C-alpha cells in the first residue's frame, strides 16, 4: 500500500541513517534525536486499555525520541485520544507500560485539549498561572505567566476575562498555561479541532514555533491529516487499537502548505485510513 514510503516499525529504534526516505528531503531539518532538545523520550510497551468489554487499545509498542513531533491520526473511536490520555497520565492503563527517558518531575508532562478549559472566573493571567502547578504561589509566578503570554502573543489580554476572548485566543491562553511550566512533553488532544480554518493555520504555525523554541517532545492527536503531515516529524496511524502505520515525514521546516510533497503524503495516509470503508464512502 505504502510502497512509496518507508516506514519504521513502531518499536525499532532506528537511527537516522537506517531510514530511507523516498520523499526526497534533506535530513538537515530533522530534529529527531536532536541532542539539544529539552524533551523527554518515551517508550511504550504492550500498552492496553479496556473499558469494560471494549478493548480500545490492544497492544501499543512505541518509542518516541526526545524532542520529536509526533502526530497520531485515525478514525474516530480508534483509540488515539485514549493513547494520549494514557501518555499524559490522565487514565491508568489496563496493561503494559509507559516509561519516560528520565524521571519525570511535576509539570514535565502537560496536556492541551480541544476545549480551552479556562477558568471563566479567573482573568487571563491567573489562568496562565494555574499552569505553574505547585509553584504558582512563588514570587516570580506573575513574570513567568507574563512571559508565556508574550510567547503566544496575548500579553495585551492579560487582565481580560476569558469570556471576551475569541476561540483562537482562548486556545492560545490554554497553550500559554501548558507552556508556563516549561514542559518536556506536551500532549495535544485535537487542540485546533474547534477552530475555523484560518485560525487553525495560524495556530499550527504557533505550535510549530513554540515547539522549535522550547524543544519539548510533542504528541498531537488530530483528525486532520493535512495538519498531521504539516506539523509532524512522524505520523502514526492507529487502527483498531493498534499502530497500523508509522510514517516518517522528512521535509524541511517551515513547510509550504499545499506543496506537492505534503499533498502526496497526505493522500497516502488518507487512502490508508479509508481502506476498508470504501463502501461507506460510495454511498
Amino acid at each position: 500500500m505504502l510502497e512509496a514510503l518507508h516506514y519504521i516499525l513502531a518499536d525499532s529504534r532506528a537511527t537516522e541513517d537506517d531510514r530511507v526516505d523516498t520523499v526526497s528531503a534533506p535530513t538537515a531539518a530533522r530534529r529527531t534525536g536532536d541532542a539539544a532538545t529539552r524533551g523527554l523520550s518515551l517508550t511504550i510497551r504492550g500498552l492496553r486499555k479496556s473499558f469494560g468489554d471494549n478493548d480500545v487499545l490492544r497492544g501499543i509498542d512505541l518509542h518516541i525520541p526526545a524532542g520529536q513531533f509526533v502526530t497520531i491520526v485515525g478514525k474516530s473511536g480508534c483509540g488515539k485520544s485514549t493513547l494520549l490520555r494514557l501518555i499524559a497520565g490522565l487514565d491508568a492503563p489496563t496493561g503494559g507500560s509507559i516509561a519516560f527517558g528520565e524521571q519525570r518531575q511535576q509539570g514535565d508532562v502537560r496536556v492541551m485539549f480541544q476545549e480551552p478549559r479556562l477558568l471563566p472566573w479567573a482573568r487571563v493571567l491567573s489562568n496562565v498561572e494555574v499552569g505553574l502547578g505547585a509553584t504558582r504561589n512563588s514570587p516570580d509566578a506573575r513574570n513567568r505567566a507574563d512571559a508565556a503570554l508574550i510567547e503566544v502573543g496575548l500579553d495585551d489580554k492579560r487582565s481580560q476575562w476569558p469570556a471576551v476572548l475569541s476561540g483562537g485566543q482562548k486556545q492560545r491562553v490554554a497553550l500559554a498555561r501548558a507552556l508556563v511550566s516549561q514542559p518536556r512533553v506536551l500532549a495535544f488532544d485535537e487542540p485546533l479541532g474547534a477552530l475555523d480554518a484560518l485560525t487553525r493555520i495560524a495556530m499550527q504555525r504557533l505550535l510549530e514555533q513554540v515547539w522549535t523554541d522550547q524543544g519539548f517532545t510533542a504528541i498531537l492527536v488530530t483528525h486532520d491529516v493535512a495538519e498531521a503531515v504539516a506539523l509532524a516529524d512522524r505520523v502514526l496511524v492507529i487502527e483498531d487499537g493498534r499502530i497500523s502505520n508509522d510514517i516518517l515525514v522528512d521535509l524541511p521546516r517551515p513547510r509550504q502548505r499545499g506543496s506537492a510533497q505534503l499533498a502526496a503524503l497526505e493522500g497516502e495516509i488518507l487512502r490508508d485510513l479509508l481502506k476498508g470503508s470504501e463502501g461507506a464512502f460510495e454511498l
Partner: protein
Amino acid sequence: MSLVETLARPRAWRLPRPDGLIQWIVPLLIILVWQAACMFGLVSARVLPAPTDVVVAGWKLLQSGDLAKNIWVSFWRASVGFAIGGAIGFAFGLANGLSSLSSKLSDTTLQMVRNVPHLALIPLVILWFGIDEQAKLFLVALGVFFPIYLNTLHGIRTVDPQLIEMGRIYGMSNLELFRRVIFPGALPSVFVGVRFALGIMWLTLIVAETIAASSGLGYMAMQAREFMLIDVVVLSILIYALLGKAADSASRLLERLTLSWHPAFQKS
C-alpha cells in the same frame, strides 16, 4: 479628542442614571393613580386610604418611635433567621455536593422534610417556643434552608467536570480545587438560591409575625387592624414591599461584585 474618548465617557457615566430611574416610573404612576382615585372619591377611605394619609400615619409612628422599633425588630429577625438557615443550608449543600457518603446519609431525609410546607409547623413551633424570638427565627431559618441547600448542591454537582480534571492535571490540592474551581463554579447557582430564599424569608416572617408576635411589622399591622387603622395596615404592607426590594437589590449588588467574570454581568 479621539473617537474612543468621546464615545466612552457618556457610556461610563451618564447611562446608569436614567436606567436607575426608569424602574421607578411604574410604582410612581400607580401611586399617582391611587392618590387621584382617593381624592375624587372613587375609592372610599375605609377601603383604601390615600397615599398622603399613609404618609401622615407613617410620620406619626415615626415620631412616636414605634415605626423604627418595629422595622428594626423585623429586620433583625429576617437577617438572623436568614443567616442561620442560609449557613446550615449552604453547609449541607457543600457536604452533599462534595461527598457521596454525606449525600447518601442525609439527602433523602432532607428531601422528605422539604416536602412539608414549613408554615404548617407554626402550631408546633408555638407549642415549642411560645411567641418568643426563637419561634420566628426557627421558621425563617427553616424556610430559607431549602432553597439555599438545593441550589448550592445543584451548583456544585454541575461544575464542569472538564475544569475539575484540568485542576487535577495542574496539581491542585483538594482545598485549592474547591477554592479556585468548585466554589466559583457553584456561586451563580448559590445566588439563585439566595434570591429565592429572600422571598421566602419575608413571607415566613410576615406570617409568623401576624400569627404570633408582640412586636415587628406584622404585629404592627395586626394591632392596627384591631383599631381599624387602615392607613397603618397599608403602611406595613408598603414597608414590606420596600424591604423586599432592598433585600433583592442587595443580593443583586453582591452578584455583580462576585460574578463580574460572568458574561451576563459584563457591561456591553
